[in-house]
Structures are given as C-alpha cells and as structure tokens.
C-alpha cells in the first residue's frame, strides 16, 4: 500500500441550528491502529464520523491529514483522499453482482467498453486479501450479511482507503460472522490502515481496539489505550454513573397460576410441537440461535402467522387468527424490528403511540386531547427524550424509539407481553432503564416473555429460560442452571449429543 495516513480532529465543534451536538472533540486515528468510538445513542458518534468522512462540515475546528489541514467538500472528496465511511445499513445495490458493486461509479473501462477482465482480476485480488471466498459474480442479495460487510470493505479498499470508518459493523452480524470480520480487521491493521469503529458491544471493543474514545453529550469524556479500560469502566464512562448492576434485583413474587399454556404449537416451516407454560407475574426468557424459529413461533401464537396447536389463556381455549384478537384477549407482541415493523418512522409520536389502541381513543371521532394526555404520560413514565413533541419518530434515537414502542404496547394494557429483542442496538444506559420497565411490569402481575439473542440479557432478566433449536424447544433452564454455557449447549444441540454417547 501507498503512504499511510493519520487523520486528526482538532477542537471540532458542530451545531445544528441552535443545538450544539459536538464540543471540542479531539481524536487522532493512526495507521495500523483500531480506534473505538463509544457512547450512548445521541452522544455524537454519528456526527463525528460524518465530519471525518466529509458528509458534514464542522462548525469550528479543523481536520488534518498527516498534519496538513484539510476540508472535505463532500464524501467523494474525502474518498478521493483516502477516507471512507462504511454505513451501518449496507450501501450496496442488491441486484448487482459483487464485482459490479465494488466498482460501482468507478468502473474500469477500455475505450467505450467496460474492462471486465481487469475488474474481475482486481475483485478476486481484493477478496483474497480479505480472505473472503464469495464469488465475484454472485448477486449481492444472495450472499450472507458477513460477506456483504466484506464487500463493503473491499469496495472501500478498491478506492484505496487508508482511513476506514465503520459504523457499528457487527450490529447485523452473528457472533461467528463478527469473528471473521475481526480477523480481516487485523489484516488491515497490519497493512497500515487506520480504522475507527463504533459498537454497543463492549466485549468486542475490548477485544479488537487499540485506542478508545468515549463520547457523552458531545464531549470527549475519556480517551486512552484500550488496555486501560475494562467493560465496566467503559460503561460507567458512557453513562456517567455506575452501571455494574445492569439488571435490577428481582422484587416481585412469581405467581403459580398459569397465564398462558401452549401445547403442540406448530408454525409450518418454522416451529414444531412447541409446548410451554407461562405463569402470572413471571418473566420467561426464550433463547436460541438466530433462525431457530423463536420469533416465528411467537408470531404464530399471536395470529401473525398461521399455526396449529392448543393455546389456553387464563384457563380458556383460544385461537387467534389476527393480532387484534390476541390483543383483545390481553396478549401483545412487541416486534424485534422497530424500524420496519414497530413504528411509522415518518409519523409523529402521538400517532404512533395510539395506533395499537386507537379504538380506546375513538368515539366516532378520535379524541386528540386524550391522545395528547396519553403522550404526556408516556413521555414521563418511559422517559422518552424527544427534541419536540411533534418530531417524526424516525428522527428519534434508537433507545427512545424502543421506549416509545414499549409505551405503545403498554397502552393496550395487555396482561401478557412478548418482547422480542428488547434492547437491540441500544446504549447501555437505556438498556438499564428498559430492564427496569420490564421488572416493573412483572411486579404489576403481568406475565412477560423476553426473546433475546443476548445470552446475558435472558439470564439477567428471566426467571426461567426456554432454549429453541431448529424450531423445537431444546430444553429449559432455571435457577442456578441459567448459565451461558448451558444455554449455548442446548442451542447448539450439544447436550443431546452428549446424552446419546452416554
């Protein structure tokens, strides 16, 4: 590779209108180092990355490349100088091939025609450098998420990136896919690329970064070599208070009466013969690998998918053909996908809050005053922080969106709630708040099912954990048995093997 680059932000401030979101930020990215930028949602990480990569200009302060002040006119200008941002949502054309994506907008030509041979060769070389075995002619929509990430990186390298900025690169990757990514990051480091990345997963940060910068409310509150931090210290710096006790202590009594009894629930293609019981006031965790049918099983239960089997709710036989029937019976499901299934991003908080329980606000016409009262109450109760009451919810941070979504579900006053991935993509401070909400609900004698891919989360929250594997309940753990090791074994089917060999 050609000369390595050091990118520095010196005293960067940035305001949007009257609101100042960055205060005097200093960060230096050095060749061959991985720099982690961490902070709660809304701390200013995105703005910082956008300023680094030319998407936004700083209000005051300067950027330097190898000590020389620069000002990027736009992101193309930044790319031309070797600074590339990889967005959290992939920026790839699904219908085009890997190779076409890598050279999109920078196609090699020979005369009037595309120089396919050269592009093919270069694509192979790039992918080989990343140890990625994806076929250059495969369509992007057909390849795995991890490979897509690699294609993004290959694309950046093809632009001769010397400073690579990655916005939550592992958010959509499984643990194994993330491992592959980290191996490649190591290779890039060795090549002298300067890397900055953000992540909410502090174990990852600890594992791969050399330098750490912690942002809070637009200020750099802590900065130093990664070796100086452990996860608790990072979290405390981010939140500004002690978060070592992430999970609240179980206060409520767990009832013994069954609230929900499911027998032989089958969702064709996803879940088979699932049976379990949920008690009043209980928090039941459901764990399992992604694709194990957890979400689909519950969607079958609440009438979002067709399913067969027996369901008893508070002792009555029920069969839900639609979510509205389930809701009427007091059973609500909170989706894992708040952006495309949970909230109308271009609508305001009021419309979103009451959408699920609109009939309660309607007497011929919708009672706007009652809606406003409900919103005020929800904002207070769930600590939703929005710039104004009329903001489109797409402009709220992920954590506040999640709180609004919980408020929306709770407005329907269900006696049983299924919360799917309650804290995906949410900063640690908000996580703690959400865990407290969940506990408060169970204390009100509501029964709760929590589905989560985060092992720690189910263990910390639930009274009992069901583990699913390939559409079936692989086992149940509770009490002292609720350990990561035990759950992983069930999820991977290892216990079964062991038993067979015995």
């Amino acid at each position, binding site marked *: 590779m050609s000369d390595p680059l050091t990118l520095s932000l010196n005293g960067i401030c940035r305001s949007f209108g*009257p609101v100042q979101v960055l205060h005097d930020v200093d960060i230096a990215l050095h060749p061959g180092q991985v720099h982690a930028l961490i902070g709660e949602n809304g701390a200013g990480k995105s703005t910082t990355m956008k300023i680094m990569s030319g998407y936004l200009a700083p209000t005051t302060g300067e950027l330097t490349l190898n000590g020389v002040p620069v000002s990027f006119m736009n992101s193309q200008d930044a790319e031309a100088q070797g600074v590339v941002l990889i967005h959290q949502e992939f920026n790839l054309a699904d219908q085009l091939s890997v190779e076409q994506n890598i050279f999109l907008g920078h196609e090699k030509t020979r005369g009037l025609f595309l120089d396919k041979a050269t592009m093919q060769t270069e694509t192979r070389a790039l992918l080989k450098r990343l140890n990625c075995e994806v076929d250059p002619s495969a369509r992007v929509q057909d390849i795995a998420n991890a490979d897509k990430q690699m294609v993004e990186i290959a694309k950046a390298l093809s632009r001769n990136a010397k400073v690579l900025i990655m916005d939550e690169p592992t958010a959509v990757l499984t643990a194994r896919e993330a491992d592959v990514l980290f191996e490649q990051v190591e290779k890039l480091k060795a090549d002298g690329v300067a890397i900055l990345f953000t992540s909410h997963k502090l174990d990852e940060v600890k594992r791969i970064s050399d330098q750490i910068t912690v942002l809070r409310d637009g200020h750099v509150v802590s900065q130093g070599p990664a070796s100086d931090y452990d996860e608790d210290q990072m979290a405390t710096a981010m939140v500004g208070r002690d978060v070592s006790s992430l999970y609240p202590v179980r206060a409520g009594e767990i009832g013994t009466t069954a609230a929900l009894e499911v027998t032989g629930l089958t969702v064709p293609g996803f879940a088979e013969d699932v049976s379990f019981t949920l008690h009043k006031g209980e928090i039941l965790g459901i764990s399992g690998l992604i694709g194990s049918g957890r979400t689909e099983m519950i969607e079958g239960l609440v009438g979002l998918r067709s399913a067969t089997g027996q369901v008893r709710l508070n002792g009555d036989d029920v069969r839900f053909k639609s*979510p509205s029937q389930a809701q009427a019976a007091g059973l609500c499901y909170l*989706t894992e996908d708040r952006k495309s*299934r949970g909230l*109308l991003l271009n*609508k305001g908080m009021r419309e979103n809050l009451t959408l*699920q329980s609109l009939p309660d606000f309607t007497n011929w016409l919708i009672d706007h005053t009652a809606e406003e009262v409900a919103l005020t109450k929800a904002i207070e109760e769930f600590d939703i922080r929005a710039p104004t009451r009329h903001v489109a919810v797409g402009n709220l941070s992920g954590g506040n969106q999640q709180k609004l979504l919980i408020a*929306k579900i709770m407005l329907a006053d269900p006696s049983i709630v299924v919360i799917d991935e309650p804290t995906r993509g949410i900063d640690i401070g908000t996580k703690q708040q959400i865990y407290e909400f969940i506990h408060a609900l169970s204390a009100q004698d509501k029964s709760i099912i929590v589905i989560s891919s985060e092992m720690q989360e189910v263990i910390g929250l639930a009274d009992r954990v069901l583990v699913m594997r390939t559409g079936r309940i692989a086992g149940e753990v509770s009490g002292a048995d609720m350990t990561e090791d035990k759950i992983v074994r069930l999820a991977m089917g290892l216990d079964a093997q062991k038993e067979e060999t015995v």
Partner: protein
Amino acid sequence: MLTADKNKHTKNMLLDLKVMGPILALIVLVLVGAALNGNFLSAGNVSNVLSRSAFIGIIAVGMTFVITAGGLDLSVGSMAAFIAGLMILVMNGLLPSMGAGWPLVMVGLLTAIVAGTAAGFINGFLITTMRIDAFIVTLGTMGIYRSLVTWLADGGTLSLDFGMRAIIRPIYFDGILGISWPIIVFALVAVIGELVMRRAAFGRHVAAVGSNDQVARYSSVNVNKVRMMTYIFLGVLVGIATIMYVPRLGSASSSTGVLWELEAIAAVIIGGTMLKGGFGRVWGTIIGVLILSLIGNILNLTDGVSPYLNGAVQGVIIILAVILQRDKKAEG
C-alpha cells in the same frame, strides 16, 4: 446566530408553502380569471364550475383514501361509464312495469350505489385477497368496464327514456337556495371525507397502512380490511358521482368518463397527498379538483391561448403544484 435565524425563517416559509401551495395556486387562478373576463365571478359561472367539478371531485375524495393507503385505482372512469350505462338500462327496463316516477328514480339510484359497491369490492378483493398489484388489477378492470359499456350500448349511446329524463333532470340542475344538488353533494362528501381522514380511526389506519403496512399489521390493524374498505368507499363514491352525472344528459356511451381516473389522481396529488401513500389530505384534493376545472373554464372564457394547449397548461400547473410541495432534500 444571524444565519441560524435566517435558516429558520426560510424553513418556515417552505413549510407554509407546502400547506399553502395549492391554496395560493387557486387564488392566483381566480384572480387571473376575474381579470380576464367580467363574467368569471358571476353566480352562473361559479355554479357551472362547481357543478361540473362535482363528478371528479366526489371520485377524487375516494381516490385520496385509496392513494393514502398506498393503492391506486385506474378503473374509476370506466366504472362510472359502466354504472351509468347499467343505471339507464335498469330504469329503461323497469319503465313498462313501474311507470315513470320517483320510485323508478330511486331504483336507479340504488342500482348505482349497489353497482359501485360491488365494483369497489371486486377491485379490493383482487388486490387484497388475491394479492395482485393494484396497478394491474385496476388496469384490467378499467378495460373490462369500458368494453362492457360499449357492448351494452352496442357501440353507440345508451339513452334514458325521454319521459324519465324530465323526472330525473332536477338531480343535476335543481337544488336548494340556488345551490345545485351536485354542489351540495360534493360539499357533503368533501366535509365527511375530511372528517374521516383527519379525525376518525379509519383515516388514521389508512395513513398507517400506506405509511408502512407491516407496522400497521403488527399494531393489530387489519390491513386487508382497511385496504378493502378504501376501494369499496371509492366504488360507492363513483356510484354517487354517476347519480349526479346521468341526469345531466340522460345518456351514457363508451366516451363517458374517459380519463376521469387521471384527473382524479392529478387532483389528489396537486392537493398534497403523497402518491406513494402514508399521508393524505382531503381538503387539498378539493382544491386540486377546483384548480383543474378552473384551468379549462378560464381557457374557454378567454381568447388568446390555443385550445390545443389546454393539456399543456394543466400539465404545467400539476408539476408546479408538486414542486412547491416537495420535501426539502434530506441532508446526509
């Protein structure tokens, strides 16, 4: 700080323009019309323009709901022609047994409403239950209804019996206090439509479905039912529009209602409803309909612009109205 204030000011202006754009365009048209011809604001001309806007207007109110829910209906013009033909055939057919009179008129009105409901249901059923794209379904039914009316009329014109025509005529030409029935019905439909869109749960659900049908589904909204209802609602309104239309000339042919669907869609978009769904406003649609009618009226009342250019003037206004309302390009 100074620049910040200035930015804020521009932003408010843009916001206002988004809401006020169609109203401003309407006011400008009225001023231009009044300046060009003294008769423009006469009671007779105002009444003419409002009455003739009623057909498209009533249909466009229904179209606002369909488009807001993320759908589209290209069949309304043909549907109107077909319902008009059916209404005339039924009345002519029952004339010998029932005799000319109001009972027969009532049967005619009922025919139109029932046929409209059924036609809307068929569109809705194919789109929701059979999951065929709305564009394709209504493109198909557009051709079907147009052919059916041509076939019913044997290629010519279906004419209402002369005696019946005299009885039914007042539905278009008479009214209360000098305001003709089409205007009254149009106003009623507009007010109810606006109320439903803004204040009723159905209107909220329509916007939610158009904005993101998955979110609506996960929020216990019966998405198919909401979609279905928008098409049925539109079908009923096409029936009502036809009830206003038939008394005017007492006839229907294959040239009845040609391009009404595009005029209705244009009015909806001029009014600020988003073509991709998720947001709609009925009052905007009403303004859109009036803008379109006024353009034709003004061009007829004045000399100087070639009638060949009528379509061009309409096209320019539609594009201008949408430019005024477009979202400021999202910043990075």
